[in-house]
Structures are given as structure tokens and as C-alpha cells.
């Protein structure tokens, strides 16, 4: 850690955290396909998950209810109307060739994760369907379509260590556990992406960011960010540019590996999702969710 501390003292490290929480519903976000978090590969698919022609999305009411509950637990403002978009890119784990998500018009805005007097502000909280998994070249669509609540954090400046990032992740786990919206102790229930970039002194803006995807524990997050900071620093010291990469992190080996080029905003096309009406959340629904938060016994 000392090497990292020295490096981070010399340059500003920008970290943007994005969390995705898998909501504990019985069926998927846009289809009635069963949605257990511990399903075996390819055991949990239906016509919609397979993107068979002629299938249409149907929105899971319980997923919305759980999303509202968690957003309230984070003190976010629920938007009375939010909208769905299709985020297009080609990947074997994305059967439709697009992911249904919310982007400019999220379910909730604002909110905070607080730890020991420090606060991580959230910019937006929105629902999205999960994508499948790729293991050793084999696609598994069991997870595809599961309901995710995405929480986008404001960029932070990390000083000395990445311990702060880990603390926020753990604090979020606690909030999720208390609000009972996810099987938080199961692997895959909460994943975190960290967008890491260095801002060398004298530069007008931060450099290109790389994204470490799907980190699941506080310690792993801290180590992954540290490893990435070292990697980028080494590149810059050699006079090389930092390429925009998507990375995975192997906590056991303390090793970053390259997933690929991340589909940047300019590569993904977005269209408003025509098959779904805008999501309308009235005050009655918000009040019911607030009541559920206050009384743990009422939570299913």
C-alpha cells in the first residue's frame, strides 16, 4: 500500500463508483421467467430471455416497489415519471442486441451513502435489466433479464488510499440489508464498477478513465482501485497513453485483466423504448414504500 499512497499523493485520483443491486424478485424485470440469484447455468430462461422474435417486455411491479424502497432508504427523490430506453450494443450475453434501462429519465435522483461523517452523493438511481454471463467462451443467460437497481455515484477524489470506496460499498450493503430488497449475502447481489482516472498536475481535466467491473467486496474494491492506479501511473511514467479499457479484477491473485474496450457512450446507440409506457409512480406508492421501510415486519 505504501507505493500506492506515494503515487496518489503526487496525482489526483478520480474514482466514480456505480453500484448495481440485484433486486430479490421471484421473476425477471421484463418477463415472468423465474429469477433466483443462485440458478444454475441456462436453467432460468424463457422466450423473452432468449429474445425470441415476437416477444415483448412486461414490467414487474414488485421490482419497481423494491426500487422505490431502496431509493427512499438512500434519501433519494422519486421521479413521478421515468422513462425506458434501449441501449444498443452487440454481445453474446445480450440476446436482444439491446438492454432496456433508464438513462436520462431515471426512477430517482439524488440520495447519499454516508459513512462516519463522509458522504457519497448519488446522481441517479434507475432500473435496468441484467445481462447474461460469459464463462470461458460459453454464454449463460440465467442471469439475463434479472432486475437491477443501478446507483450512480458522484465522482470522488481519492486521497492516499481507496479505503473510502470500500467503506461506501460496505455502508451500502448495510442499507440494502436493512431495507430487505436483495439477497445481499448471496454472491452477485451487489456489484460495483469503479471508473478510475488520474488527473496529473498541470492538466485541465482528468485523463481517460478505465472501468473495473463487477467487484463485489469492499477489500477487493480497495485493492482493485489501487492496482489500477499503479497500472495507469506506470503507463504515464513511460510516456504512454491510457487507453479506455474495461477491466476485471481477480482478488485472489491481486490481478487486473482486460475484458475489452468498453462500449463508450459514442458507440452505444440509444432509442426510447417503444414497447413500454413511461413509469408513473404516485405519492400513494411512495408512501407505501416508506411504510415498508419503517416496519421491517411488513417486508416480504
Amino acid at each position, binding site marked *: 500500500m505504501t507505493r500506492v499512497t506515494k503515487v496518489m499523493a503526487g496525482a489526483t485520483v478520480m474514482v466514480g463508483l456505480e453500484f448495481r443491486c440485484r433486486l430479490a*424478485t*421471484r*421473476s425477471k424485470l421484463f*418477463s*415472468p*421467467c*423465474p*429469477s433466483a440469484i443462485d440458478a444454475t447455468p*441456462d*436453467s*432460468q*430462461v*424463457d*422466450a423473452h430471455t*432468449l429474445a425470441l422474435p415476437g416477444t415483448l417486455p*412486461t*414490467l*414487474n*411491479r*414488485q*421490482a*419497481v416497489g423494491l426500487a422505490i424502497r431502496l431509493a427512499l432508504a438512500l434519501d433519494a427523490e422519486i421521479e413521478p415519471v421515468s422513462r425506458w430506453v434501449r441501449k444498443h450494443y*452487440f454481445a453474446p450475453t445480450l440476446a436482444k442486441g439491446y438492454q432496456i434501462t433508464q438513462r436520462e429519465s431515471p426512477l430517482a435522483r439524488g440520495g447519499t451513502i454516508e459513512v462516519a461523517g463522509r458522504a457519497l452523493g448519488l446522481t441517479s438511481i434507475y432500473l435496468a435489466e441484467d445481462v447474461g454471463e460469459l464463462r470461458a467462451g460459453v*454464454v449463460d*443467460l440465467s442471469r439475463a433479464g434479472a432486475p437491477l437497481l443501478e446507483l450512480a455515484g458522484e465522482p470522488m477524489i481519492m486521497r492516499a488510499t481507496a479505503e473510502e470506496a470500500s467503506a461506501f460499498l460496505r455502508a451500502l450493503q448495510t442499507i440494502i440489508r436493512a431495507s430487505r430488497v436483495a439477497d445481499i449475502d448471496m454472491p452477485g447481489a451487489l456489484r460495483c464498477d469503479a471508473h478510475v482516472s488520474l488527473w496529473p498536475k498541470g492538466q485541465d481535466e482528468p485523463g481517460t478513465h478505465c472501468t473495473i467491473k463487477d467487484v463485489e467486496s469492499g477489500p477487493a474494491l480497495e485493492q482493485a482501485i489501487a492496482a489500477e492506479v499503479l497500472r495507469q501511473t506506470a503507463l504515464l511514467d513511460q510516456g504512454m497513453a491510457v487507453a479506455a479499457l474495461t477491466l476485471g479484477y481477480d482478488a485472489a491473485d491481486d490481478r487486473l485483466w482486460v475484458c475489452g474496450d468498453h462500449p463508450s457512450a459514442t*458507440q452505444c*446507440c440509444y432509442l*426510447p423504448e*417503444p*414497447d*413500454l*409506457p*413511461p413509469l*408513473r409512480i404516485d405519492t400513494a406508492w411512495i408512501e407505501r414504500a416508506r411504510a415498508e421501510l419503517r416496519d421491517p415486519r411488513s417486508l416480504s
Partner: protein
Amino acid sequence: MAVITDADIEALAHLCRVELDAEGVARGRSYLGAIVGLLETLEAVDTSGIPPFVAAELVAALHDPPGPTALREDTPGPRVPAAAVPS
């Protein structure tokens, strides 16, 4: 009138995962040039203050009795048989 180049066509073809030979690129360029010119006539329309058309909202306004479009209850349905899952 927009000028569409071969490079534009090749870039679009890559984005939609379609491979074109030289003749295909040329045909694509001529087609897009003509149609994009047609689409550009929409720039002359004054749309200030006009909201985008949302077909789903058209439908929602026609429900009788009036009310929002119902969401799906969280009841799991059937999976497809393993044989139908691609390998």
C-alpha cells in the same frame, strides 16, 4: 444535402454488424445519400414546444375505464425446456 462517404458506409456497416463488398458500399452510399436527403427535409419543420409522440401514452389515454397501464404481478412463469437453450 448531406454528403455520405464510403468511410461513413463502412463505419455504419461495422456498427450494425453487416459486411459489405465494394459494390455494396457504393450501393449503400447512393441509397443513403438519396434517403438522408429526404429525411433532412424534416429540419425545416418548426418543432419548438412540440413534445415527442409516445405511442404507449396514446394507448394509456384510451383505457376504459381510465387508469394507468397495469404492471405485471411478480408470479414466476414457466421456463423453456433445456433443449431450447442454445449451446
